[in-house]
């Protein structure tokens, strides 16, 4: 078995009087899709935000490639190779697609003493990458505001993949997507994983998780209920875990099957 690329050890995070994470430990392995599941408010977003440098953990250690890491802000995490597509989109609607694509990672060229934003390169790469993802833009200067939600999600993922992330974190990328767009995102996850990148995938949908996940961690009220490997757990068990097992039997009876 390979070494984990990120080890989150006993992470705690408090917001004022709210304890969002009460000691969570998770290992992320390259080439695997690690699904993070759990109720609303379980702390999933908070957890991956500490992983991507947005929050600093109140307690606990983060080991990146075996060495302890202290990310001061998201820039550090990004330059270490952790790319994140946040739940509430990380796109700026008023900016063009290509400016968004390279936001925080602007390519530069030198002209004399000046270091300028290389727009030609940015535009070319953006068009190319978007075409690869199956989106034909009117032009690289089209504003993100004119794209649909699914298209925006795709831009965000394409961006993360493009910048050669070692770890790709996706926070509920499929929740607002249609079936076709969802399939596309899942296929992308699959593709990325096969390139040896570690993927952290948050979802509420057991089927989406089962479709691409290699490992499953369920969070519950800021704590982890442990990690399971693919094949070790059935969708029904997973669903029970996510919901805490209560009352669902009864509901399922009346409504038929897993929800």
């Amino acid at each position, binding site marked *: 078995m390979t070494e984990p690329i990120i080890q989150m050890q006993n992470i705690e995070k408090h917001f004022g009087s709210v304890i969002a994470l009460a000691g969570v430990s998770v290992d992320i392995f390259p080439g695997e899709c690690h699904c993070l599941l759990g109720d609303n408010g379980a702390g999933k977003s908070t957890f991956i935000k500490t992983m991507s440098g947005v929050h600093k953990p109140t307690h606990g250690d983060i080991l990146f490639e075996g060495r302890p890491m202290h990310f001061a802000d998201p820039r550090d995490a990004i330059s270490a190779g952790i790319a994140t597509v946040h739940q509430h*989109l990380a*796109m700026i609607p008023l900016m063009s697609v290509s400016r968004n694509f390279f936001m925080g990672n602007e390519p530069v060229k030198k002209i004399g003493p000046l270091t300028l934003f290389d727009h030609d390169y940015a535009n070319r790469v953006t068009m190319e990458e978007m075409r690869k993802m199956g989106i034909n833009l009117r032009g690289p200067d089209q504003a993100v505001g004119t794209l649909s939600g699914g298209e925006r999600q795709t831009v965000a993922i394409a961006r993360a993949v493009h910048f050669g992330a070692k770890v790709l974190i996706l926070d509920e990328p499929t929740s607002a997507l249609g079936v076709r767009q969802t*399939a596309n995102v899942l296929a992308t996850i699959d593709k990325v994983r096969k390139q040896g990148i570690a993927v952290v995938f948050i979802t509420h949908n057991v089927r989406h998780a089962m479709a691409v996940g290699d490992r499953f961690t369920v969070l519950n009220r800021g704590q982890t209920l442990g990690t399971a490997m693919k094949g070790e757990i059935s969708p029904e068990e997973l669903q029970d875990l996510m919901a805490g097992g209560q009352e669902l039997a009864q509901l399922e009876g009346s409504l038929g099957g897993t929800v």
Partner: protein
Amino acid sequence: MAEAAQTTPAADERIKQISPLRKALIRPELGGMVGTVAVFTFFLLFAFDSGMFNSQGVMNWSIVSAQFMIIAVGACLLMIAGEFDLSVGSMIGFAGMMIAIFGVTLGWPIWIAIIVTFVLCTGIGALNGFIVIRTGLPSFIVTLAFLFILRGFTIYLPQIIERKTIIGGIKDVAEGDWLAPVFGGKILQGFFQWMGEAGLITTFTRGTRAGQPVVDGIPMLIVWAIVLIIFGHVLLTKTKFGNWIFAAGGDAEAARNSGVPVNRVKVLMFMMTAFCATVFAVCQVMEFGSAGADRGLLKEFEAIIAVVIGGALLTGGYGSVLGAALGALIFGVVQQGLFFAGVESSLFRVFLGVILLGAVILNTYIRRVITGER
């Protein structure tokens, strides 16, 4: 839209095509350009023979516009970065007063006074920005507080130090200084001299300067305006940092998550605004030789108006320095043009209000087409 995730997207039959001409025209500066053309057409028709377009007249509205441009550049960048600064006017008064106090009252060499003032004022700008990013308060409130605080000191300090609200005599102490002409001097004087001799521009007919051209050079004020516009434009559209400015103003949280150092960008833009205000103040003090407590009153509104006429979005994330410069030009030309046209001066405000409304409605339409905003 429904095409989103198909591998071979076809043209979407649900959206009409946009003609290339329309696409080329639709840019943030379009509103400013249309306005500029309209304003010049208007005054060419109604004030052509009033002296507005002779060399002196052109210099007159150019200088006024250049003044607006200097503060508009700072305000524009800050507004695009998602904040704004109501303390610009008070900062102008304060900076001028500081130079006077340092240079005249304390007797420091003028170049030291200028440099210390720049450091002090950009420091106050940074403080503004720091309070905004640390407390998360709207910049409207924070800079409104500084509007009062700075104006208060601008009136109070000279009163307790010199017992007056105006400190003069800066020209005398600036005599021979190496830094002062960078703000108060003129360039291309030889060229204008030659033009005057060649009869290309009129010359004085009497007095001590008889024979000299009526316009004897380009004031550094205009040079500063041009330099700042070019700097701002390149910074905003051609550099990495420019992308960060847009990102910080468009959605600070998203930008932060993508690795943009939003706080640094905002604080730097507050400093930039303060810098521009200080340039304005120093040019004014060096040209006129005195600093008064009334300097810069309401200039913050004038800066914001120029920027908004120029197409920037009040809530940030969208705009253009060239647009703001055009906005300043429109503002300056209208203000002085109405004098040339002999319009009752109190009506200037009415015109300004109407132009502002018209420009913003036009700009909103253009922006919606560009960004697909709803």
